[in-house]
């Protein structure tokens, strides 16, 4: 192993989640490489302190008043989200069910996903990010959120969950064409939805 490969395995090495033969190779490298040994000790120290950090932090002031004044309407779905949500939910259900079906105890790396599939995933991801950035105004800027985009947020969240689950399944079985197709389909649906939302918020008809 070279330094980059050792660094890539330091977390599972510290956690003890590593095969014996890999442990031997890493320890051989650490015995000869001062820089990686410093990385290892630093990672161990950091792990100890981060474990001691409290998860909960008390804000300097009460934030409730600023929230309560914005709770004007009871939680409800918009007319728009009523038809689009079931579509996304159905898609997510297929993705989750398929991901579960293909789930195996083995672990893997995203690097094992074929390069062409990785390239398409990255392209869809970039297109979705660009659309979302363009659709959503800076929340610190105080401008009003686009109506269709706001209505689509729960659907987008559902699609993001489906993407995460499909991706996890594909990492476990990277050459599976059905899983590749499924992940790319969900990515494509997300981009299509964002394009629809952009059209609606630009003044198009529902």
């Amino acid at each position: 192993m070279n330094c980059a490969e050792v660094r890539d395995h330091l977390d599972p090495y510290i956690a003890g989640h590593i095969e014996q033969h890999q442990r031997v190779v890493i320890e051989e490298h650490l015995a000869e490489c001062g820089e990686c040994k410093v990385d290892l000790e630093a990672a161990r120290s950091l792990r100890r302190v981060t474990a001691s950090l409290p998860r909960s932090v008390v804000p300097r002031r009460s934030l409730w008043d600023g929230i309560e004044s914005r709770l004007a309407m009871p939680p409800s779905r918009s007319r728009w989200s009523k038809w689009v949500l079931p579509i996304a939910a159905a898609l997510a259900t297929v993705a989750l069910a398929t991901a579960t079906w293909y789930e195996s105890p083995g672990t893997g790396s995203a690097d094992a996903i074929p390069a062409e599939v990785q390239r398409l995933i990255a392209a869809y991801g970039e297109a979705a990010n660009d659309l979302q950035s363009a659709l959503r105004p800076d929340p610190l800027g105080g401008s009003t959120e686009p109506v269709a985009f706001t209505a689509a947020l729960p659907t987008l969240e559902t699609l993001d969950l489906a993407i995460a689950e499909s991706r996890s399944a594909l990492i476990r079985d990277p050459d599976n064409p059905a899983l590749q197709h499924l992940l790319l389909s969900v990515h494509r649906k997300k981009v299509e939805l964002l394009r629809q939302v952009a059209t609606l918020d630009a003044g198009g008809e529902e």
Partner: protein
Amino acid sequence: MVGLAREGDAGAFRSLYEAHVGRVYGLCVRLTGNEGEAEELTQDVFVRAWERLSTFRGDSAFSTWLYRLAVNQVLMARRGRWRRERRILLSSTAPEAPAPTPQWDNAMDLERAIATLPDRCRVVFVLHDIEGWPHADIAVEMGTAVGTCKAHLFRARRLLRKVLAP
């Protein structure tokens, strides 16, 4: 309590707020490194949670759903900034110089050091090393590759060593 809040009971929703505000604010302040921004984002998270309670189906714990919403809210607020910084990031991938092993005895020092990290390094460090998220999940949320996440984490740890070195 969640069921009551979903029916529009603001009192029940306030109880949920009281139970979870520390955890949500903790996430926001560590992810942003800025108390004022974290306060605004925490308020945004609870308003969005109220608006979306109808989509919470109880498949996971309410806390899990809420914290994921918080991470999503923070990252959405920063994606535009990251897009603008993309070119800068690509030109700043030179390896960090090795730093001595620091004495990390003081958690407050570490909190302050985390706040000084570059934006994406801080987000990956907080989600991976503090919140325990796997790289694959972080990559999906950030819209980036797993390898890029790992590079951000490595850089974050190196920078923390520099900042905290005695």
